[in-house]
């Protein structure tokens, strides 16, 4: 089924878009991430211009993560207070990140920073997670579906810092600076790499703040709704790179996929879920590395602007 995308000004297969949507939605619901880091390269591969792919993704992720977050909400798997504190940090980070972006662009180091930085980010988070989750997978073969119970022996980040705050849902008493700081770092990444920040937030909430594993995905999705919503408005008004028809077809698949993913996550051991997410991050990192090193098909690229 052929669909013409009015903003991208190209025609593409609508059925393919729905299938891509289901895939990314499933990943989103399952792992508590937006899934943009998988989806954007796939859309570009399907012939959609990169700027339209990134811009439209942000809009589509709002619906997908809302769908996933509501599924978690029904099971009381979101720490709203933690989410809101992270969001405050994240917005501050995004504003600083935009300034950093401008500065990098002036110095001419932007391309290098984005490609190398994104690769290092995905690669390092993926490697750390794969190492940790593989160890816990081997160490304690726990029962299926034991969520909300698993807590680490280490102290959470910010337990001894000033400005302590209670997070009753997570049964944590930590400094408000810790989640704000994590949100800030995610926000900077959002501005520089154009991602939702879920795949940074999920391991940060779990490893650094020691949040109960059952609350991590829902809280991350809750945060990503707001960051991507804000990004979507910026993209639509400043760069005109949101294609509503493309968003519609992606959403058609992804909102259902997110529900399935959020339901399936209970049947998956948390260590295994982290292991699979880590594998996915590493696959994307390897693909990025390959693109950086392998001799490209054509050394030239072309962008055209029509007045």
């Amino acid at each position: 089924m052929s669909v013409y995308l009015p903003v991208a000004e190209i025609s593409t297969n609508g059925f393919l878009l729905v299938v891509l949507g289901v895939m990314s939605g499933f990943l989103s619901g399952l792992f508590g991430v937006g899934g943009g880091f998988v989806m954007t390269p796939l859309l570009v591969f399907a012939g959609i211009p990169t700027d339209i792919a990134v811009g439209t993704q942000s809009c589509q992720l709002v619906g997908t993560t809302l769908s996933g977050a509501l599924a978690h909400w029904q099971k009381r798997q979101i720490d709203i207070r933690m989410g809101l504190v992270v969001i405050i940090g994240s917005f501050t980070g995004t504003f600083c990140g935009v300034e950093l972006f401008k500065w990098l662009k002036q110095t001419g180091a932007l391309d290098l920073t984005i490609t190398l930085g994104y690769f290092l980010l995905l690669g390092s988070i993926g490697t750390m997670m794969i190492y940790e989750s593989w160890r816990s997978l081997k160490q304690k073969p726990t029962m299926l579906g034991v969520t909300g119970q698993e807590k680490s022996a280490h102290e959470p980040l910010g337990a001894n810092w000033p400005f302590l705050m209670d997070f009753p849902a997570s049964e944590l008493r930590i400094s408000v600076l810790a989640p704000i700081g994590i949100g800030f770092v995610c926000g900077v990444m959002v501005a520089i790499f154009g991602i939702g920040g879920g795949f940074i937030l999920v391991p940060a909430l779990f490893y650094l703040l020691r949040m109960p594993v059952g609350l991590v995905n829902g809280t991350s999705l809750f945060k990503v709704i707001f960051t991507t919503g804000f990004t979507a408005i910026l993209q639509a008004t400043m760069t005109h790179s949101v294609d509503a028809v493309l968003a519609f077809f992606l959403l058609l698949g992804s909102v259902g996929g997110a529900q399935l993913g959020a339901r399936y996550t209970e049947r998956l051991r948390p260590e295994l879920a982290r292991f699979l997410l880590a594998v996915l991050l590493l696959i994307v990192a390897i693909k990025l590395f390959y693109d950086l090193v392998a001799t490209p098909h054509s050394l030239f690229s072309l962008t055209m602007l029509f007045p």
Partner: protein
Amino acid sequence: MIRRWLLLLLFFCAAPLPALADDLVADLSAHVIRVTTGFTGATLIVFGSMDVPADVAIVVEGPMGQATVRQKSRPFGIWLNRDSFVFDNVPGYYAIVSSKPVNELVAPYIVDANGLSLDAIHFEMADGADAVKAALFRKALIERRMARGLYREVPNGAHILSNRLFRAAVPLPANVPIGIYTVHIYLLHEGKVLASQTMSMSVDEIGFSAAVHQAAEFNSFFYAIATLAMALIMGGGSACLFHKLGE
């Protein structure tokens, strides 16, 4: 007397002009190509009649824009965009459809003067640009555009019927840019341009597609809110639906 002189003058002025209007009568199958939600590309038919036996070459070009060509190189072992070149007045689409390969019909200078091959397209560039670099990037621009089916040469794409009628099919792919196009029709015979005619046509978004594009460009805040609302309703709706199904 003066009248006669004027007539004579007119005769001498008019004589070298190759195009006598009656030699060539042509039209297009459509002056507006409509791009709707189901658009998968179109074929523009250029047809007409000629007074004398000749060959035809048709050039379709449009809309004009600015092209930035970037070249990747490998400074630290990784491929990055390092060098770039900007061309102005670049047609987004360019096709030459002819009844025979153009270089068999006319001399190279006529090909160049009338843009009858992709190598003859004239792009504007900044004053004092490096000519060697410009040639390299120009070649890359044409090659990239050809790879997307937006620049093409179709020798033998025009058909001549009984030396009097011609008909040519110009393929417009699904990714054809929106805008105003110019169609040039040339009658070529014995190495000369016998007659030519120029027409315009446009590729326009129609209906829903046009409304979406208009809103995205000119009403972007409203568009942003509407698109977000769509995302939220679809996300929320599916959560409700699955919740009900689960019960």
